[in-house]
């Protein structure tokens, strides 16, 4: 297959991928929501969870996006240095976004800064947003697609603490963000926390943390324990579905970290709503693929 043909096939695959994941929740989210739904013990929380599940079934049946806010499309790319389309990737993903916007259809969500006009096709300066990681000596490409609506993007926050504030500062910051603004972001939430030495690294890591499956653990055993302690603490506030009160608050807490400057302790928080539309696909050099977040699905 020549490169042009590969690019056509890859763009087509990514357009179908992008259309698909706005309509179908990943397996880990369905599992978490099913468990949370069964634990509810108030009429209001049960009604809200029932609405959520009815809505997901209706979206499947109608083959339409389950939430009208299909986000500004973001792709988190782990691209092998020998993946044949490494140089064409941005153009392919841009064309895939334009196609998915029509075919899914997706809401028009890219408003150009300063011009303040909606482009009408979900592309614009640096959008779809691509986060790159190059994997040495691999010919595969793993792509996480994410549709974060405005509602769950609004609580996003980061802060650089002085190290004497310690992890206490991080804990207080996260709890304040979730209780003040997370309640409006369609809980139960997947909470992403980034810890690093500067604001932009912590922020990006907090978003990357949302790509990790619910129930997976931080690579460091202390970090893994921190995730559990935070999730347990947030759950005991019982913010419930939609911030209306109910059993538990989160689907999970995922933390990612980078070593920090001795003088700075930065924290970033990103929240994923209950309708956490995140999908992961591994594409091989011959364009065969696995959609590993949605088992058994062929695009």
């Amino acid at each position: 297959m020549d490169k042009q043909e590969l690019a056509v096939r890859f763009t087509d695959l990514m357009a179908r991928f992008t259309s698909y994941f706005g309509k179908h929740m990943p397996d880990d989210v369905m599992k978490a929501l099913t468990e949370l739904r069964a634990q509810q013990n108030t009429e209001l929380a049960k009604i809200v969870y029932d609405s959520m599940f009815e809505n997901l079934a209706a979206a499947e049946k109608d083959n339409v996006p389950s939430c009208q806010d299909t986000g500004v499309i973001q792709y988190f790319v782990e691209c092998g240095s020998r993946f044949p389309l490494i140089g064409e990737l941005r153009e392919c993903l841009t064309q895939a976004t334009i196609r998915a916007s029509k075919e899914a259809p997706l809401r028009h969500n890219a408003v150009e800064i300063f011009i303040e006009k909606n482009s009408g096709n979900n592309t614009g300066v640096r959008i779809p947003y691509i986060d790159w990681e190059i994997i040495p000596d691999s010919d595969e490409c793993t792509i996480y697609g994410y549709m974060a609506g405005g509602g769950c993007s609004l609580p996003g926050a980061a802060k650089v603490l002085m190290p004497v504030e310690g992890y206490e500062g991080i804990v207080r910051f996260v709890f304040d963000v979730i209780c003040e603004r997370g309640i409006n972001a369609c809980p139960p939430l997947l909470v992403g926390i980034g810890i690093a030495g500067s604001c932009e690294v912590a922020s990006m890591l907090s978003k990357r943390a949302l790509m990790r499956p619910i129930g997976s653990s931080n690579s460091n055993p202390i970090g893994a324990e921190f995730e559990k302690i935070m999730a347990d603490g947030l759950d005991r506030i019982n913010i419930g579905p939609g911030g209306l009160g109910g059993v538990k608050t989160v689907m999970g807490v995922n933390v990612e970290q980078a070593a920090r400057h001795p003088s700075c302790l930065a924290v970033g928080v990103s929240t994923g709503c209950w309708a956490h539309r995140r999908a992961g696909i591994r594409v091989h050099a011959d364009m065969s693929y696995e959609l590993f977040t949605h088992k058994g699905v062929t695009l």
Partner: protein
Amino acid sequence: MSKKILTTPIQDKDLEDIRIGDIIYLNGFLCTARDCAHTRLVKQGRKLPVDLKQRAIFHAGPIMVPCGNESGSGYKVVSIGPTTSMRMEKFEKEFIEQTGVKLIIGKGGMGPNTVEGCMKHKAIHCVFPGGCAVLAAHCVEEVEDVQWPDLGMPESLWVMRVKEFGPLIVSIDTHGGNLFEQNKKVFNKAKEPIVEEVVAKTEYID
């Protein structure tokens, strides 16, 4: 228990007995109005091209697709869930005052400005379950009109006729009640001792 259904035009007396936490439904006229509609009316002083008196607005930016002559607007709705109402807090009191709107539907809570507007002008704020955009679309009978299309798909004013639109959970009533503020107090009270416990377990710096 029978469904409590409000029908436009909504009278002040229809709202009197409604309290925060109640669940209601809407029949009749519903128009989307979010950030830009609020800014144009309240901040820029432009006249809204849709009459909202005794009617309902929806803080929402839908996915619409063209459908030719099937509807008055030439569009049909694919997906239309609520957006974060708090973004409209800054202008909502004036919006209620100037339009005479009676029912505001959105997601999450609103603040004291809206509470004041709702008390003074007899209006309520309700939440539709967030993310449930296909359920909401199923309650829309027809997209009758679209105004201010220059704002783009999410921000245009989409005028719809709806049937049993809900469940709508009352978040602000005409008596000064605010469900989310009440909840926030409960959450914040619960938070304090929990944070102390978490802090004690996570002192990782020697």
